[in-house]
């Protein structure tokens, strides 16, 4: 079932916090994963796999490079959830 933007954002923030230690409150839609949150490509992949499990979606490897900001990821997850 599709979740609203805030639900996805807070769920994603939890995952990011668990993987990287970044404060969940800092995981905001306008933040860039690499530039602002200092998340490298392998941590990003761990976040992606955990997000797939948590939100019941599939995020192909080729799609990951398009998820620049937290907002991009939230949007992608919401769309994928239908």
């Amino acid at each position: 079932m599709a979740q609203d933007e805030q639900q996805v954002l807070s769920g994603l923030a939890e995952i990011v916090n668990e993987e990287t230690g970044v404060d969940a409150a800092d995981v905001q839609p306008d933040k860039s994963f690499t530039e602002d949150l200092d998340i490298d490509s392998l941590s990003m992949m761990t976040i992606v796999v955990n997000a797939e499990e948590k939100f019941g979606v599939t995020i192909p490897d080729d799609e990951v490079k398009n998820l620049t900001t937290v907002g991009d990821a939230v949007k992608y997850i919401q769309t994928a959830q239908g």
Partner: protein
Amino acid sequence: MSTVAKGTGTLQAPVGARYAGMLGVGGYRPERVVTNDEVCTWIDSTDAWIRERTGIVSRRWAAGEETVIDMAEHAAGPALEMAGITADRLSAVIVATVTHTMQTPAAAPILATRLGAKDAAAFDISAACAGYCHGISLASDMVRGGSAEYVLVVGVEKLSDITDKRDRGSAFIFADGAGAAVIGPSDTPGIGPTVWGSDGEKWEAISQRVPWDKIVALQEEEAATGKPADWVAAGAIDATEASTLKMAGQTVFRWAVWSMAPVAQQAIEAAGITAADLDAFIPHQANMRITDAMIKQLKLPADIPVARDIAETGNTSAASIPLAIERMLREQEVPRGGLALQIGFGAGLAYAAQVVRLP
């Protein structure tokens, strides 16, 4: 008109040993230590960046004239010594490598002759980073199947030959070395069932993009100048897609962790043990981050020693597991006779895992 077989006589079936075991292990690390700082004289990176993303502090590179056969020979000696046999007792020599520079002849017959394994069956296998575990599986089956008594399995690579040393995405990962194991008859089961397979759909995730003839020319340039060649300037590779050994890091990371952890788990179950019975976890030394993520997925008990040889050895593909075993035994991190889970995974994509009793 149909033909009829003569139908006379009953074939003799081969008879092997009841069990196979790992009787000896040896390693060879080239003399030259290449630090991250040295790598950073060719690429725009830092020691801290490389350590954080790979866990690699330094690696070994073979000398220019040193071949995979030379390195394999150095690793085979101590493995035979530990096994307590001489090379003339070997009935087969298997070399797992992707960096023997000739398609034919294979490295194994030359190695066998150098070692004094006269008349041994000898062949190479190409399964990249999974090659060593493939070799152990073959050797175990050969011993039990009756086609060999003692088998030498060598994983050896000279990856510095196919690494674009100016590519900031891969120059720091790959390295050189050799590891060897002697497999032979055993009174008790010494090698558990192998869980193996491949996924050719992902073949592009790790692949060599420059043919050997171009690489050889670049090696000659490096030997002449003493400096890493500029592969892009030489036209060997496209500037937009640097690195000859191309690796889609994120794809490989996802596959290695989330697809390989279940394979490792299956190997434990197939061996009839539990993770708590293990004395060591020895995954292919691809990247420390992959190892850490695999441990998390496998939920291994915290007290089980884990191979971290990559820190000072780099990623040596087929050689990484036997090299890690050699170090862990030498440093007494794991006991002789202990149970180790080993898993190789890499280009193909190919993988193989089994639980072995360490020599």
